[in-house]
């Protein structure tokens, strides 16, 4: 009987039944997996994230990325302290690794895994209280990586080594650059301006978030979700509000994966059938371009070098993203002599980075980190930022159409959002529904690629002014 009890204790069943919030997260993981596998919503991204959510939310598994406070501290409580209680003003919450403790009340402030009541004297600085011997404080930024792996599990190691260090976002940008063709943008250069209109959501949500209890750095990190660019969102949050990285990364990547749902929704609410039926090829025939291209290959080689130089001069804080994006593109365009680098950047490195990023971002979505009001605020704010960015691009296209002879399909404005090339594919599908001959993919790619540059520049601005 004792053996059976031990076997039962070994399983996660007890903790799962005691704390149904874990089941909520597991159900969420199943929904995300369903969307990725069955519905095909960006499976390369959504499936690793969803699986990361799943494995992070089994008590005892130690696969969840631990939430840290604003200064990077993680607290663990001794068994003695748990049994005897922590005294007035302190309550503990369930730890990711399954330590049982009481739930925190809503008027307590979270510090790592502990909640404390700031109204009680002496609680302002946790380390000064007598409980220090019973509470182990880990300074995550001062810990060697092998200690992180040993103390908190392999997923925390991956997260802190690759994401919190800021390594993966520029690496992924390099891969994105290697997979991006600037040809459509160069052929329709004027359309690149719609990549600016679609950054409206970033700054609009910055204003709203700053009035809703977020400080300016947190508001900036939340707002950058509107750039629809996961690596950019991670990079900016690392610089401005690293303690919010988990929920922001989750929101940014979830919405990127849900672009096939969000763009049609905003387009349906804001565009008429006539606007969506504007046929870009017919417009081209009516108002043909005078630009001729004698040597597209040379142009494609010179373009990334030039853009890098311009951005580096104007917004140097954006150069780690734009520079890597353009480097990836350059090794693609040079051709034979750098084809090995291109193959590695676009396949091996990109795929490896996507796997680690997806899994570890998913693993940040634990009960502690996700099921609280601030995270829900971030998720809601992120959705607004995303939607407003699409709306901003559409509005710019509509304003343009008021004054220009050559009309622009507002879908091209909508794709000023980043999320390359998914946003363009979705926009093309919408256009084909209204006119089976209206292929807008190449036109959308112009504003879409410009959106990547635009969101990186917006991130650079936020980092410059708020960082």
């Amino acid at each position, binding site marked *: 009987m004792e053996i059976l009890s031990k076997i039962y204790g070994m399983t996660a069943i007890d903790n799962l039944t005691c704390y149904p919030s874990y089941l909520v997260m597991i159900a969420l993981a199943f929904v995300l997996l369903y969307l990725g596998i069955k519905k095909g919503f960006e499976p390369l991204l959504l499936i690793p994230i969803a699986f990361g959510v799943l494995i992070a939310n089994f008590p005892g598994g130690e696969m969840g990325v631990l939430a840290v406070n604003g200064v990077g501290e993680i607290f663990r409580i001794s068994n003695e302290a748990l049994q005897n209680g922590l005294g007035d003003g302190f309550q503990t919450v369930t730890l990711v690794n399954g330590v049982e403790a009481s739930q925190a009340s809503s008027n307590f402030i979270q510090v790592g895994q502990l909640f404390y009541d700031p109204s009680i004297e002496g609680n302002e600085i946790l380390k000064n209280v007598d409980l220090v011997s019973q509470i182990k404080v880990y300074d995550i930024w001062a810990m060697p990586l092998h200690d992180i792996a040993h103390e908190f599990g392999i997923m925390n190691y991956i997260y802190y080594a690759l994401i919190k260090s800021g390594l993966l976002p520029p690496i992924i940008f390099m891969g994105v650059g290697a997979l991006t063709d600037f040809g459509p943008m160069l052929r329709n250069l004027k359309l690149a301006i719609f990549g600016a209109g679609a950054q409206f959501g970033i700054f609009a949500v910055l204003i709203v978030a700053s009035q809703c209890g977020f400080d300016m750095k947190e508001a900036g990190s939340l707002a950058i979700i509107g750039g629809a660019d996961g690596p950019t969102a991670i990079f900016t949050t690392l610089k401005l509000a690293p303690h919010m990285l988990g929920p922001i990364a989750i929101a940014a990547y979830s919405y990127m994966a849900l672009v096939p749902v969000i763009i049609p929704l905003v387009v349906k609410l804001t565009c008429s059938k006539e606007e969506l039926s504007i046929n870009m090829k017919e417009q081209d025939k009516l108002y043909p371009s005078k*630009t001729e291209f*004698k040597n597209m290959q040379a142009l494609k080689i010179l373009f990334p070098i*030039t853009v890098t130089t*311009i951005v580096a001069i*104007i917004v*140097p804080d954006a150069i780690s993203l734009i520079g890597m994006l353009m480097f990836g593109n350059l090794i693609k365009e040079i051709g034979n002599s750098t084809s090995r680098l291109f193959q590695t950047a676009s396949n091996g490195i990109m795929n490896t980075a996507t796997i680690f990023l997806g899994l570890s971002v998913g693993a940040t979505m634990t009960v502690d980190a996700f099921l609280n009001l601030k995270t829900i605020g971030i998720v809601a704010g992120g959705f607004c930022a995303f939607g407003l960015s699409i709306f901003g691009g559409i509005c710019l296209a509509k304003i343009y159409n008021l004054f220009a002879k050559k009309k622009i399909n507002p879908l091209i404005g909508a794709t000023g959002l980043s999320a390359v090339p998914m946003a363009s594919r979705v926009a093309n599908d919408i256009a084909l529904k209204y006119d089976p001959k209206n292929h807008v993919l190449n036109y959308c790619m112009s504003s879409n690629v410009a959106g990547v*540059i635009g969101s990186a520049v917006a991130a650079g601005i936020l980092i410059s002014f708020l960082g």
Partner: protein
Amino acid sequence: MNSLSILASATANAQEFEGLSGALLLMAIGMVTVFIVLLLVIYVGNALIMFVNKFVPEETKEAPKASFASVQSVDAVTANVIAQAVNTLTGGKGKVESIKKI
């Protein structure tokens, strides 16, 4: 330190970008900067196109022709398309020797 950083630190010192006015100011600066950068990309892109058209005219490369004998299974156009695809994928190192329908 570049001019934007100087402006950033100066303005940050003055207003610290707190509150509604700070957020509105940041929105104005951010949107204007993004528009300026993308306008520059457009104008410089156009300048690049003119530069390339004038000074780096395209070298006429002969398209690789299907240099294999057993092309009876496909027509000449298809054979050339396959040869070009192989040429692109292998960086000019690959050579099509035969095409078989399977």
